[in-house]
């Protein structure tokens, strides 16, 4: 009896489900960043708004990367529904705290997919995920550095204005320590 399933799809049903969940997570992440950009813009934090617009676009690119991978491997990529996007935030700082939480959650979720892939020896997907691990290194670094500005500069007086000015300058080099 021929192995029709393997011929049609490189990834297993379980990995496909996890990748589709990740597609949804990236879409939610992109929408959340867009919402953060909106809040920052409304409250006069121009540079931070710009920073979050860029982040939203990046998350969207990540989503598409997963989406195309599932299709390339013979799976069914599902276009996700994004609901419950937050509109209001209590403070400027809260936004950056949520941004970091979000990135941590994305990293953990990708680690979980990789663990599943290792279990079923799907090294093809592991290799695909490696790009994201490097990306997450940068994403978490940027989010953490942005939050640290609040402690370094302080929010009193023109503090928030100063923080906003520095958010756009956060940069992560290609290799660690750059």
């Amino acid at each position, binding site marked *: *009896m*021929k*192995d*029709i*399933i*393997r*011929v*049609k799809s490189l990834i297993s*049903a379980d990995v496909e489900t996890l990748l589709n969940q990740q597609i949804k997570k990236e879409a939610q992440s992109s929408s959340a960043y867009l919402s953060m950009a909106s809040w920052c813009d409304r409250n006069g934090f121009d540079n931070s708004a710009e920073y979050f617009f860029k982040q939203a676009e990046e998350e969207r690119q990540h989503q598409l990367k997963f989406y195309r991978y599932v299709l390339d491997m013979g799976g*069914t990529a599902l276009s996700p529904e994004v609901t419950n996007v937050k509109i209001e935030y209590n403070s400027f700082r809260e936004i950056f705290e949520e941004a970091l939480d979000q990135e941590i959650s994305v990293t953990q979720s990708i680690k979980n997919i990789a663990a599943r892939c290792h279990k079923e020896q799907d090294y093809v997907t592991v290799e695909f995920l490696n790009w994201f691990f490097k990306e997450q290194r940068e994403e978490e670094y940027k989010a953490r550095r942005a939050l640290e500005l609040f402690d370094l500069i302080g929010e009193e007086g023109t503090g928030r204005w100063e923080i906003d000015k520095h958010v756009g300058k956060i940069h992560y080099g290609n290799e660690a320590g750059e």
Partner: protein
Amino acid sequence: MQNTTLEVSTHLAEVYSTVKGAVYQSDSEKCWYVDFAGKMAKFDYRNILKLKKAIYAIDIEEILLNSSKTADVEIVFICACEHCYVLTLLEIISFKELLEGTFVMLSLNQILHDRLYRIAA
């Protein structure tokens, strides 16, 4: 009719069967024949996955606990597929059992292929 059955049986391999039904694979047509609820239906790769998803998605426990006076009948319609099933609760349970067994056997077949032909000894 008898001739068709005979012809079918020569190129089909049984994947899994229960007392209520059976699933056969046709290597030449790259598809599966599902013999259940009084009919033999042909499913290709995409459609059998859709069938699996549709049947697995039925919440059997919820139907069992549902005390409303609606009929215990579930209509399983698969998009872009010519077959449709109208199943009672007992049939759903048997169909799920049949499909679960089928997919376990297909995974086993994949493991056997890996071991026998794909991985050098």
